[in-house]
């Protein structure tokens, strides 16, 4: 019955437009004495207005509603996220007032770019938030109109280096293509872009043949029938693309899983009671169907294996280690 009361409390809080905060009773029990006595800062390592920033702001809004505490979102952008990642790992005070709202590309920075300065162990994961799967999209006009992912891969094998694919260098865009090329023997012409959206726009403009991106990035073009998702790099099919097969289904494989997973961390050494409270704040907000609806509207889904986890820190660590193995296998990291 706890969940129902939580839902009701959140609903009430939502209906009141935040005029008075309806504190969640279960959450109040966990509240450490005298904490927080100032606003809690959610650090986002990308500029305001992007997907990561919106996720953090929605989360902050509902955490405030559930807890009655003040939460601020602070953007520490720069170095493609590296500046903020380094800040959280090395400079932020472990006093419970700094929480990092991160995406799984934090691991790439920690494993490939940070060695010698800091590592994964410098932060502790406290909650899973949501995920966005990387999908392949093709145009509704041009030579690959109506083609399946397998057919496009075949074309890239028959005529190596002629099928143009949008990639974001040094990221999962590239890793997924690496895996697909290794699996099928295809060879793509990789056109580099800085982010998923510019690549998708290039697809609409006929400058590339295949683009890769997240649902939220191409939803409006999908509605306008300017592109179609043809395969998705998630473990299971995603709610908003029910009829789009996963790469794993297509190849009967397991390794084609590339998604942005969003989670919260605190700097290492944050007191246990504060850590537990910060974690519970997010967990409570995640129970709110209204917030989940806002996340779904951004295209994000909740990955059951993480959402139902009983030891989230260990599960997130395991996911990071899996990515580390990939870096070693592909020679990106010397073991």
């Amino acid at each position, binding site marked *: 019955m706890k969940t129902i009361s939580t839902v009701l409390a959140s609903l009430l809080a939502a209906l009141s437009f*935040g005029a008075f905060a309806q504190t969640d009773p279960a959450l109040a029990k966990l509240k450490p004495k005298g904490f927080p006595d100032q606003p809690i800062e959610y650090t986002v390592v990308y500029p305001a207005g*992007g997907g990561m920033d*919106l996720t953090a*702001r929605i989360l902050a809004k509902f955490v405030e509603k559930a807890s009655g505490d003040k939460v601020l979102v602070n953007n520490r952008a720069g*170095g*493609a996220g590296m*500046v903020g990642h380094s800040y959280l790992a090395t400079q932020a005070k472990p006093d419970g007032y700094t929480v990092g709202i991160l995406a799984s590309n934090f691991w790439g920075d920690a494993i490939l770019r940070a060695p010698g300065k800091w590592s994964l162990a410098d932060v502790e994961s406290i909650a899973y938030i949501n995920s966005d799967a990387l999908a392949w999209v093709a145009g509704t006009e041009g030579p690959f109109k109506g083609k399946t992912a397998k057919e496009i891969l075949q074309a890239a094998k028959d005529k190596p280096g002629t099928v143009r694919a949008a990639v974001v260098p040094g990221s999962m865009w590239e890793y997924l293509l690496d895996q697909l090329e290794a699996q099928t023997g295809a060879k793509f012409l990789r056109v580099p872009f800085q982010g998923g959206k510019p690549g998708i*726009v290039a697809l609409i403009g006929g400058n*590339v043949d295949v683009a890769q991106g997240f649902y939220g990035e191409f939803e409006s073009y999908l509605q*306008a029938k300017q592109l179609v998702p043809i395969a998705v790099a998630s473990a299971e099919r995603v709610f908003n693309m029910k009829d789009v097969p996963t790469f794993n289904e297509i190849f009967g494989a397991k390794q084609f899983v590339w998604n942005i997973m969003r989670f919260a961390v605190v700097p290492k050494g944050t007191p246990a009671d504060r850590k537990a409270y910060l974690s519970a704040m997010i967990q409570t907000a995640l129970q709110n169907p209204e917030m989940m609806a806002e996340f779904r509207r951004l295209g994000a889904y909740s990955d059951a294996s993480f959402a139902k986890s009983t030891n989230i820190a260990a599960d997130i660590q395991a996911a990071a280690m899996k990515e580390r193995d990939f870096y070693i296998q592909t020679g990106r990291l010397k073991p």
Partner: protein
Amino acid sequence: MDAINGLMMGFSVLFTAENLYFCLLGSIVGTLVGVLPGIGPLAALALLLPVTFQLSAVAGLGMLAAIFYGAMYGGSTTSILVNIPGEAASVVTALDGHAMAKQGRAGAALGMAAISSFVAGTLSLVALTFFSPLLASVALKFGPPENFALMVLGLVCTLYMIGGSTLKGVLMIALGFLGAIVGMDIVNGQDRFTLGTVNLSAGIEILSVVIGLYGVSEILMNCETIVKNQMLAEKIKGLWPTFADWKASWKPMMRGSFLGFFLGLVPGGGPVTASFVSYTLERRIAKDPERFGKGAIEGVAGPEAANNAAVSGGMIPLFTLGIPGNAVTALLLGALVMQGVQPGPMFITQRPDLFWGVVASLYVGNVFLLLLNLPLVGLWVQCLRIPYRVLFPLILLLSIVGTYSANKNIFDLWVMIGFGIVGYVLRKLQYEFSPFLIAFVLAPMLEQSLRQSMVMSPDGLMIFAHRPIAAVLIVGSLILAALVFLKRKSKQPHGDL
């Protein structure tokens, strides 16, 4: 007509006390952040973004858009008065605007800047109202090769910015390129010249460069002369543009509006490029180009019109394609998404109330800004009476706060101070910064689009010949470049570069 009906609906959505209040509030905040050096529209929008979540979509978006416009209006003020541009888009305004101020005509320059901004803002809104869906397809036609050609054209325009020695000017362009190389390589993701620090892995922060080069170094220069401070205000010659000013300005204003709108529309453009290209154009077609840099009002009217028109132009790909052209429109996109709207091809059909409501708020915001800015001209001119020893520490303080607030990274402040010192030395040696800055702004896009084109092209450079838009732009650039060098050569027969 659909557009007329739509706009009518927009105004009926807009005219509530709440919406108009937030539109006015945005205009005031925007003007303020534009005037204050260092605090650009981006910092203000990021701060106010969470506020809009509590508002209706039209009120929230209307307020944010008004801040963006307002910053373009206000940005020219410090350029003209104290030669310190509030942000990159008003760098060119300082060239002739400040020269006018020195001649006691600050009022005319400020007035013309506000009027040009209004005219261009309104004209381009009319274009946005009637041609949005049509123009969206133009933006899509600009793939990597077209963007590259556009960047080349922009770069050639910087040659016209060079006032003194050609050699020094070209050197500054080269330095601008070098500065822009710092940071992560866009193709293979490797760090370049980052000196092992993560602070440089996304490149040198442009805001720090502008504030340092223009703001800090200007203040350092003035420290030398502060004792013999001649207050400009002693020779103010009237607050308003004269009839002759109007006559000289209306054509540049129209050309600036058109140019700015188009450059705002295409992905590689934006307010900064628009202002530079407009200045170049005016200087190129003027009968007596020597006046430029010495207080030609055309040099204020054209660029100020262009940067405001570019803001409206940039709204089209934002609304109809969901493509943000720069960091500020990216924030507006975020605000729309938070309101439950995915801007894109279906935006106008799915949420006509919201689209037209926002468009209507842009019209109203422009009127508010004009009404706000014209009476302020007198007030700003009075600011010149503030002794520099009071004014400059204040500006320096604001510059530091503004630069820090953008990323909350202390490193950016060191960069700002470093560029301030570099700027001081370069001023002493009579180097101009404008070619440096425009090269610095254009280089990343130039490099990216060139490398994308080369990857896409089966036959190397021929890709620029096969694509008509790119070919026309490249040929145009070559002709312009040839003209520049021929003219300079004929003027300097002794080879004194």
